């Protein structure tokens, strides 16, 4: 397959178009603007819709309309913009509407900065808006994976009728790597529920998130959570690297995982048995796979570009069977492989000295 040199953001947009995205609605914000720009240039030539909305709020609601009309639709933004979209995301989830939302994360809170960050893990995984709901959350770690996950995102959004988020960051969005696009033919599913005009051949379709009767609302939420159980068993993705004999398992997602991988390689060269566990879906989280990867470990190091968010899930899943430590940088700073290696070495010394074990926490 042809290898192209592309920025993560542009490759994501190209993958979306190839995956059948008919409508893109966006609003400029660094560091995701190349996505909008790519759609602006390409959609008119490829029979698609690009519209720059007046706000992130309007953009996500345009996605709601286009999705309700039965087409594949998408919006993208960066952290502060995702906060604005969270109202619409909640409505999309509650209305069982498929769509793809991209967050090219930057440092927060507030206006924060524009450099890469992973500080929206909680927002993406735990509370992308009000109410009980989940998104499928993909965490790519390379430009190629960004492309592959974009295809998956559209497919699974339609399959499970739910919004799917691609949680990227400024590093993955801005960097260029070789990438190839799969030659898969996209089959768009029939959407009998969509608002396409009933032509007097069926009763009217209603896209709605309002249930004034508590029992009916509870049922709609329960039904959705039963669907999430299917998502858990069918969509969970993860990768493990050198974990089978690892003393120390490093856990990291997205861009952090690439840096952690370099650190793990350096640790191995120094004779430290380190491994890497990387969730590729953050919801559903690869719980069984994490436990399996840690089967021979003495300790776990979670590294993130935030103050410690995924680490809560790691601790919850491992149920205090292992000490789980955290190393993170925030504010747009990217940890270096050397930083992480230093943490691994420190932990290794403590393990060898008996100062770090499952009972020590």
């Amino acid at each position, binding site marked *: 397959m042809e*290898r192209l*040199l592309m920025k993560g953001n542009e490759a994501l947009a190209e993958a979306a178009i190839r995956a059948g995205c008919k409508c893109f609605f966006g609003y400029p914000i*660094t*560091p995701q603007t190349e996505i909008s720009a790519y759609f602006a240039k390409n959609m008119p030539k490829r029979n698609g819709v690009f519209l720059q909305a007046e706000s992130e709020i309007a953009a996500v609601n345009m996605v709601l309309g286009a999705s309700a009309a039965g087409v594949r639709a998408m919006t993208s933004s960066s952290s502060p913009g995702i906060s604005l979209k969270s109202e619409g995301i909640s409505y999309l989830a509650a209305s069982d509407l498929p769509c793809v939302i991209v967050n090219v994360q930057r440092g927060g809170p507030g206006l924060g900065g*524009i*450099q890469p960050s992973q500080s929206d893990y909680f927002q993406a995984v735990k509370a992308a808006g009000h109410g009980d709901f989940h998104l499928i959350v993909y965490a790519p770690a390379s430009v190629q994976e960004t492309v592959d996950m974009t295809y998956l995102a559209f497919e699974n959004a339609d399959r499970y009728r739910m919004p799917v988020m691609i949680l990227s960051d*400024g*590093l993955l969005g*801005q*960097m*260029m*790597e*070789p990438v190839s696009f799969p030659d898969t033919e996209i089959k768009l599913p029939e959407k009998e529920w969509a608002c396409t005009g009933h032509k007097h051949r069926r009763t009217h379709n209603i896209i709605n998130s309002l249930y004034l009767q508590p029992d009916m609302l509870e049922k709609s939420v329960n039904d959705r959570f039963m669907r999430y159980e299917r998502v858990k068993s069918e969509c969970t993705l993860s990768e493990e690297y050198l974990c089978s004999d690892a003393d120390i398992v490093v856990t990291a997602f997205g861009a952090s995982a*690439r*840096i952690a*991988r*370099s*650190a793990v*390689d350096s640790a191995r060269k120094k004779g430290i048995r380190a491994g890497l566990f990387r969730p590729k879906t953050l919801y559903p989280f690869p719980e069984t796979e994490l436990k399996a990867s840690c089967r021979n470990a003495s300790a776990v190091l979670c590294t993130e570009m935030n103050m410690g968010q995924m680490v809560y899930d790691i601790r919850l899943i491992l149920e205090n069977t292992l000490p789980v430590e955290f190393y993170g940088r925030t504010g747009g700073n*990217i940890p*270096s*492989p*050397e930083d992480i290696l230093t943490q691994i070495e420190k932990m290794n010394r403590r393990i060898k000295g008996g100062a770090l074990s499952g009972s020590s926490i």
Partner: protein
Amino acid sequence: MLTKIILSGFGGQGILFAGKNLALCGMNSGCEISWLPSYGPEMRGGTANCSVCISDDPIGSPLVTVPDIAVVMNTPSFDRFEPVVASGGHLFVDSSMTDRVSARNDIHCHYIAASETAEKNGISGMANIIILGRMIAECKELLPWITVDTVKGAVKGLVSGNKEKLITQNMTALSIGAIGAAS
């Protein structure tokens, strides 16, 4: 083998372009590569830099903190990156743009009046490519994948507009750069 490169200077000096050129050369030679630019206020007339990694194996961190090769095309870039070049690595300085001189004796320093030379040869704006030419000539061991021919191929893939003229200018710049090389 993994080679880590930083290119830095002012926005408008073609820093990102030279980096893309290297990355594309690497890709066309079947290597794994990554190119990571600085972005944000820096690119609006301030200093710009990019990290390029070329490797036979998958690349972990695309962010270069300890470069094997650093190109610095102004004083702020010299001050920022000269101290972090890996021991045994190479530093390329556009001496038309800064009068800084490295006091390190564990790295190879190359001072090239690239901007002046480009101006004199009627290819102003090609200082970046002159330095690239010098780099390819000086760093054959660190960049075994890259030759003048791969760069020529990369330029073709990168330039738009009057391709013939730009390719000719790029080739001129590469050979001017190579002439100054020690070997």
